């Protein structure tokens, strides 16, 4: 006869615990901003230096650590060197924030565009604009048209490939969560299962160790890796754009951020006045030519 009261007691305590947990726990933050701001209305005024930033008067910009060349130099985003660092400061200037008003923050690549509350005003980290990512975050206009490229060790079988078909039988690798990995699974469709790494460094080290035959990265990164990091590797070729629109890097903002339209128009202005082209030439000038894989 003691079974029933025990079950009852347990049920009651379980219910109480669940109730408390729900009540005390995770009251979510409202997402109402997202719906009325997503279209990027022009009503927001982009008063120079007076935007509704995380810390007023400061512009918080995020990127991953380590910050890779040629996008940044010496792993120091704040030195203004490297393409993305230069673009970030140009955007900041356009928005009315001078160099001293820019605060850098380290945010992992995958986390930058994951859903959730953001601690930065915008993130600049070679994030390609994609419809799936757009569901979770806002993007500015693209600041760089990017192509994906394949790297292999010189003299290897992979280095001799001249077409996508020539890559099919190889062991390919890329960083997880990147469009590079999508190119492997969606464009190359290799017969061997691809390798997915948490960091680009690990993909590079796997390439050096012969654990993969070739890796896929974006073209400027490919130039940096082959010219500085793994000098016995070469760029096998670059992929053509998939679909009609070119793949573009965009600045990442919180979903429904008040800043999205301002940041976007700042990027557009920089493209219009030729600043982006100038910076591209300055920092990514050698990243122009690589054979196209068909």
């Amino acid at each position: 006869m003691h079974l029933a009261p025990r079950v009852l007691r347990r049920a009651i305590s379980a219910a109480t615990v669940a109730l408390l947990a729900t009540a005390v726990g995770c009251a979510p933050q409202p997402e109402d901003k997202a719906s009325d701001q997503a279209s990027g209305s022009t009503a927001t005024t982009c008063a120079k230096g007076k935007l509704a930033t995380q810390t007023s008067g400061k512009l918080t910009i995020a990127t991953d650590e380590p910050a890779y060349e040629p996008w940044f130099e010496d792993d120091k985003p704040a030195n203004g060197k490297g393409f993305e660092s230069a673009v970030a400061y140009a955007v900041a200037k356009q928005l009315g924030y001078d160099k001293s008003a820019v605060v850098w923050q380290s945010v992992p690549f995958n986390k930058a565009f994951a859903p959730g509350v953001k601690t930065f005003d915008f993130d600049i980290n070679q994030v390609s604009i994609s419809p799936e990512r757009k569901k979770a975050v806002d993007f500015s206009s693209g600041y760089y048209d990017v192509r994906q490229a394949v790297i292999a060790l010189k003299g290897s079988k992979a280095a001799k490939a001249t077409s996508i078909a020539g890559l099919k039988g190889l062991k390919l690798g890329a960083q997880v969560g990147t469009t590079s990995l999508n190119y492997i699974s969606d464009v190359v469709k290799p017969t061997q299962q691809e390798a997915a790494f948490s960091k680009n460094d690990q993909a590079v080290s796997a390439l050096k160790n012969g654990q993969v035959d070739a890796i896929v990265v974006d073209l400027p990164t490919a130039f940096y890796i082959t010219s500085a990091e793994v000098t016995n590797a070469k760029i096998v070729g670059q992929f053509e754009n998939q679909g009609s629109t070119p793949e573009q890097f965009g600045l990442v903002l919180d979903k429904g951020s008040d800043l999205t339209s301002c940041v976007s128009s700042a990027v557009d202005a920089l493209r219009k006045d030729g600043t982006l082209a100038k910076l591209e030439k300055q920092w990514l000038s050698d990243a122009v030519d690589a054979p196209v894989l068909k």
Partner: protein
Amino acid sequence: MTVVKDESGRKAADDKGDMPGGGDAYVPSQRRLDRERHKRTRARRATAIAAVSTLVTAVVLYVVVVSAPGWERTKETFFDGHYAREAFPKVLEGLWLNIRLLLICGVLVLVLGMLIAIARTLRGPVFFPLRVLAAAYTDFFRGLPLIINLMIVVFGVPALRLQGVTVDPVWLGGAALTLTYSAYVAEVFRAGIESVHPSQRAAARSLGLSNRQALRHVVLPQAVRRQVPPLLNDLVSLQKDTGLVSIGGAIDAVRASDIIAQRALNYTPYIVAGLVFVALTIPMTRFTDWVTARMDRQRAQGGTT
């Protein structure tokens, strides 16, 4: 004597006053009938109360969870049917790698762990260096974080370009898991060996068994049998940690879900992979419970310990 009579005889003990006495057919007393009816009512009432309260709890939980602010977003983020369907076959495909790793590493870990445990419990001054080495091994690999171990072995070892050493991240990852887990398992075995009372060994020796025979036929069987539950515990843990070989680029169940989750920015694939692991672990823990219970029964009945 019929069965009925036999029963009545036994029941008679507590209904003495009402028994008519003699060998007549048993007629339960009124008091007894009342008591039984009362018991039945109580049991029915208890069942009814338990059922109602379970139902109420379920309804309350359902209402609380579903009406909680943010439930819609939680559902979209963690329980999206579309992504679950996409992830499930890929996770299963990756899981096959985890299972193979578990089987191969499991066997290697048991063998290596046993050898280290024996090395650590050997007696005699000549075995001193062996004892020290075995102790150093367990100390080092139990203290070394598994993730560091994996990164050293998976990324570091191939950089040495050793001849005849594989660069396959799965084999290397398996080797790292074996190194760490054999240290744990060695300690489990050692605890087992030391838990066998010294008199057992003394008795074996007095019967003329050599040290080695005493270890093989008297100490180890008892030690291993006692340590089955903690060993299975370590195997369950190993099974989950096989997911860590994905850092080398191998696509197991964890990484397969990771790829979809990172692309779609939806965390349903993680839930799917997590549940698959839980589903794999539950039979193993139940098996552990069953083995333990069976051993306890045997011991209680005076069987071998």
